[in-house]
């Protein structure tokens, strides 16, 4: 069975541009979580989608947004990119609350 897949693996953008990151959860999983892993800061919670709706978000500005599609895949959009947005963005999926969350390999976003 395929795990959580994220694309692209690497993304290089210039400051001010927009970035779109994609995540496909494990088949049957309805919850998708997004995290930012900046160097030395651990994992920071970004967004949680479940059944197509945004259920919760972390302490990030509105230029971080996303959506979940009917097939439960998800997109994370980051507008007006700033240098400090450079990080590894991880997506995780789970079947229901507090069951095991399965992580993707991440998208390495570099803003120059």
């Amino acid at each position: 069975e395929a795990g959580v897949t994220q694309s692209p693996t690497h993304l290089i953008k210039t400051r001010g541009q927009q970035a779109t990151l994609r995540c496909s959860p494990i088949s049957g999983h309805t919850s998708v979580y997004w995290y930012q892993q900046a160097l030395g800061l651990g994992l920071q919670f970004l967004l949680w989608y479940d059944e197509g709706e945004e259920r919760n978000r972390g302490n990030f500005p509105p230029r971080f947004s996303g959506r979940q599609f009917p097939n439960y895949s998800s997109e994370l959009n980051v507008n007006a990119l700033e240098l400090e947005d450079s990080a590894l963005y991880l997506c995780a999926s789970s079947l229901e609350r507090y069951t095991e969350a399965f992580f993707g390999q991440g998208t390495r976003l570099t803003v120059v």
Partner: protein
Amino acid sequence: AQRVTQPEKLLSVFKGAPVELKCNYSYSGSPELFWYVQYSRQRLQLLLRHISRESIKGFTADLNKGETSFHLKKPFAQEEDSAMYYCALGDNFNKFYFGSGTKLNVKP
């Protein structure tokens, strides 16, 4: 507010020695606590969760509500245990808070 604190960035032990990775949390409700592990070049994966009270790969973790801790322990470390370990807390609103991680290095 910092929900999960892992005070050690790096922990080095010799093979066969006991290991304890510290995790303290701050939450007023009834949290769910987890330990995740990331081996070299692999994705982050769940190691164990406190509600299961299970032992995985010889690791155990006990939730101490008085000390608000959820330390990860193993009596005899193995070289293959070398990895990055993250403590995580799930709150009542399905937010997950991760600590900054502890890198465990088990020396031969």
